[in-house]
């Protein structure tokens, strides 16, 4: 089964896998959402429309729809 950032629970980490360029805006890649980087999920926003992550030493929130396009492999 494909796992994406959204499947992580609070505090869990994963490594970003390859993704299709089309779906992920360049800006996310520029702040560090790139294949091979480690991402940690900190919090979902109250109605789950945003996810709050840290990746590449940055802390930021992106929309859940977008996060659901970023595949990861979970780190146990």
């Amino acid at each position, binding site marked *: 089964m494909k796992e994406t950032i959204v499947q992580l629970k*609070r505090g869990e980490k994963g490594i970003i896998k390859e993704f299709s*360029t*089309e779906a992920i*805006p*360049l*800006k*996310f*890649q*520029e*702040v*560090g959402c*790139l*294949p091979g980087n480690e991402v940690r999920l*900190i*919090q*979902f*926003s*109250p*109605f*789950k*429309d*945003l996810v*709050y992550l*840290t990746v*590449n*030493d*940055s*802390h*930021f*929130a*992106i*929309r859940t*729809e*977008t996060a659901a396009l970023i595949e990861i492999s979970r780190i146990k």
Partner: protein
Amino acid sequence: MGKQLNVALIGNPNTGKTSVFNQLTGLNQKVGNYPGVTVEKKEGKCKLSNGQFAHIVDLPGTYSLNATSPDEKIVADLLLQKRNESYPDVAVIVADVENLKRNLLLLTQIKDLNIPTILAINMADTMKRKGISVDLQQMEEKLHARVVLLSARSGKGMAELKGLIQDYDKLSSESCVQFTDIDPVYFEAQKKKFHGENLYKRWLNTVLENGSLKQEDEDQITSVQFENKSETEIKRLQQKETILRYLFINQLLKDSYKRDPALAEDFRSRVDKILTHRIFGYVIFFLIMLLVFQSIYNWSSYPMDLIDQLFTQMAEWVDNTLPEGALTSLISEGIIPGIGGIVIFVPQIAFLFLFISLLEESGYMSRVVFLMDKIMRRFGLNGKSVVPLISGTACAIPAIMATRSIDDWKERLITILITPFITCSARLPVYLIIIALVIPENSFLGMNLQGLTLMGLYILGFLTAVFSGYILNKMLKLKSRLFFISEMPAYKLPLLKNIVYTVIEKTKSFVVGAGKIILAISVVLWFLASNGPGEEFRNAKNIVQKNEQNQQLTEEDMANAIASYKLRHSYIGIIGHTIEPVIRPLGYDWKIGIALISSLAAREVFVGTLATVYSVGSEEEETIKNRMMKETDAVTGKKIFNFATGISLLLYYAFAMQCISTLAVVKRETNSWKWPVIQLVFMTGFAYVVSMVAYQLLK
């Protein structure tokens, strides 16, 4: 002296560029702990140790030169126009020491433009606490740039930075990555075609033209471009470029940047688990707001009364001391009450600015963005709209400018259009005085009823804003690009110095700004009120004394009766009576009408205007509040500031577009007269109807 030395401060959002700018230039531009504080180019001068002046430019923050929002585009534009007179001779990349990796991405891009570059690693004061160490020498070698550790808060490293700027001709302008590796064949061909030109600049032009911002300022982009590449291909290359740059950066930092994992306890994440919690998050937010309104009300009533009395005494003193005459009465009846009508609100305004700057400096603002995004989206807005909406409680003008950090044009436009509904500090004076007059001082559930009413008005403004957003979202046929990213900055202990400075500065400019307007208005008003065209004005004394009904009046009442008869027949009285029929249905008399008109210039002069008008119309000096309380309606004989009229006025000011400067800013930001006109017509029309209904129902 030759050409001026241009220095541009460039960097990611919230890395302290403006703090560095302020240190260098001695100016005081706005600093805040959230991304997107600076949204326009700011310029200043800095004296170097050799006596030369450097021209410093502060820019909005950006993650890369591939701009997507209007504030980021300012940076890209500056760097792509070599002929621009502030095209930088030196780029100072201000980076956050905790986040070097991401900050260096931008640096490698700037280097590719062959601009001499200095890397200023800011916030060096936090390094020890976070267990960070940096090998500067190694970095300098690999980046081909000078590197300096800086703390804009303490001023450490500033002298060194100035020294590097001074010796700018020794800086390297060599690039540090070979970006053409992403498509060697293609770029080799381009190199031949555009002989000697900077290829990265060419590439950026292609990219930006392809991107979403192409509709504006097309002329600035050189028309000859690369051989056509499809959009998907460009995107693919951009990704490759980003990866390439990060590859270089990771390699570099692996050796030269160390972070002690034991000290990486993540304070931010732990606090955020509570502050952004789906229940506690909202509870905390609500409690903070409640505290703000209660304190604005409770803590400042005492100084407020004091100021009111002070101004009354001052007017009395002038009246008694200076020789009688036109000038004396201009001062005691026009200027002093008018200015008093503004100064009286200084305590509240100061509290308001205090709370806003605490919210901004602590980093809490971005958490509110996170909490509110979903709710905002339902109304066609964006979580980031929260920032303008909160800073709109100070003033709509900077708030509308702050929308520049919203990427999506539709969401940005809606935010611009609804921001004026937010209760700004200029409405506060109107609300406060009217609430004091018509809402009883009782307490309700242990809370001050007047304070609750005030909070109610803020909530009303907010709900109206959001609801209009909903309607606009349905109506506007604009394509929307759903894409959102919001940084969550580290929490910072607000710097006392900054806070105190901001509060004093903002309060001062409130008083001075409004003071100038009221000074002008009160002179005009006083003139119009103390002169009249006809016999009735000149002979007021005889006419009133002859009137049968007035025979038994005491001397004092008689004097007042004459004064108000005169006022009724002065120029202002005549103007007022002409417009009275329009505002009667709302429960206002002509004096309020005059105040409504003059407060189009700025809402806060409403009280000052009334103070002047009332002051001319009566013989003794009194506090503004007492005077308003005593005022009776010439037609109905009832108190003017009764409950119905009071509520009607509150609603009118809540909704009406009573601010010319805001309209001007909306015109500038939307680049058309269409939107400000729509705003004016709809908001004021809506205000009129609502106030009328309210008055007629409550009367």
